[in-house]
């Protein structure tokens, strides 16, 4: 019995090793922090719009249909790389996409959208980064999936790749 008891630390050690090994081989981003806003209402905000003369009022935009919110900036290289997928969401999947222009130069942003194509139905401006803080954003690009009741269902930190594009599409089907 006593001898058996002494095996316990070895078993525990092997268990810890296996757990660490498992975490090492699965595909995950250890720096990605889960959003605290999941299953909560979208934060309320009001700001200028990049392409429209009227102000952007969040309470008027969310809560009617599924919306994808994408924080982007022209100075952010991954934003440019993921733009092709953002465009596919709006053109192929007919999802409404709102692009929040984060700490950017407005004329650069207008040119950027002219050159690369504009998938956004509206582009609210977050000049100071204060709106992003309310959304718990810490590294753009970040993309949020909002259901038709205005509840945040998913957040992706970083560039949208083919894999995340597929994942978000599956989630859209699930919440439809």
């Amino acid at each position: 019995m006593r001898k058996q008891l002494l095996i316990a630390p070895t078993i525990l050690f092997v268990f810890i090793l296996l757990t660490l090994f498992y975490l090492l081989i699965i595909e995950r981003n250890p720096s990605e922090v889960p959003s605290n806003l999941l299953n909560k209402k979208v934060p309320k905000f009001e700001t200028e719009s990049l392409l429209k003369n009227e102000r952007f009022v969040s309470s008027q935009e969310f809560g009617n249909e599924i919306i994808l919110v994408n924080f982007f900036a022209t100075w952010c290289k991954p934003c440019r790389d993921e733009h092709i997928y953002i465009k596919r969401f709006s053109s192929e999947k007919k999802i409404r996409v709102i692009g929040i222009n984060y700490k950017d130069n407005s004329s650069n942003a207008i040119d950027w959208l002219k050159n690369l194509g504009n998938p956004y139905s509206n582009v609210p401006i977050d000049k100071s980064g204060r709106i992003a803080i309310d959304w718990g954003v810490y590294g753009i690009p970040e993309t949020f999936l909002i259901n038709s009741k205005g509840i945040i269902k998913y957040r992706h930190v970083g560039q949208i790749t083919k894999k995340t594009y597929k994942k978000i599409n599956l989630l859209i089907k699930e919440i439809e």
Partner: protein
Amino acid sequence: MINKTFIIIISICLIQLFSDNSFTVEPEEVLENQKQELRARNISKNIRCMICQNQSIDESNAPLAKDLRILIRNKIKEGKKDKEIYNFLTDRYGDFILLKPPLKSSTLALWLLPFIFLIIGFFIVFHLNKKSEKI
């Protein structure tokens, strides 16, 4: 010669020990009211920089850390209490933004397991010691 080098090395080590880490708060951020500034610095030291993750926003040069430092100072100027400021930040970024995880039912294992392992360790050492005494 060796003694001189030794003294220099020891001095450098001691400077590291007693220095108040890095100081990244920029002059324009500092509040005029010293008491308020001290409060802001104390809060900032407990808030994790979400980009660098192992630094507090008080030490970090990241733009988001600066934004949060300014936001904390503005909240203090508005007359918000420390707890309200911490709640504001955890509501948006979760408990992860606190450098010290709070004691909650979900973090109970994190806080208690080291003590449990320590007790198990003592028990094993005590047990083996007793056994070797018999021999």
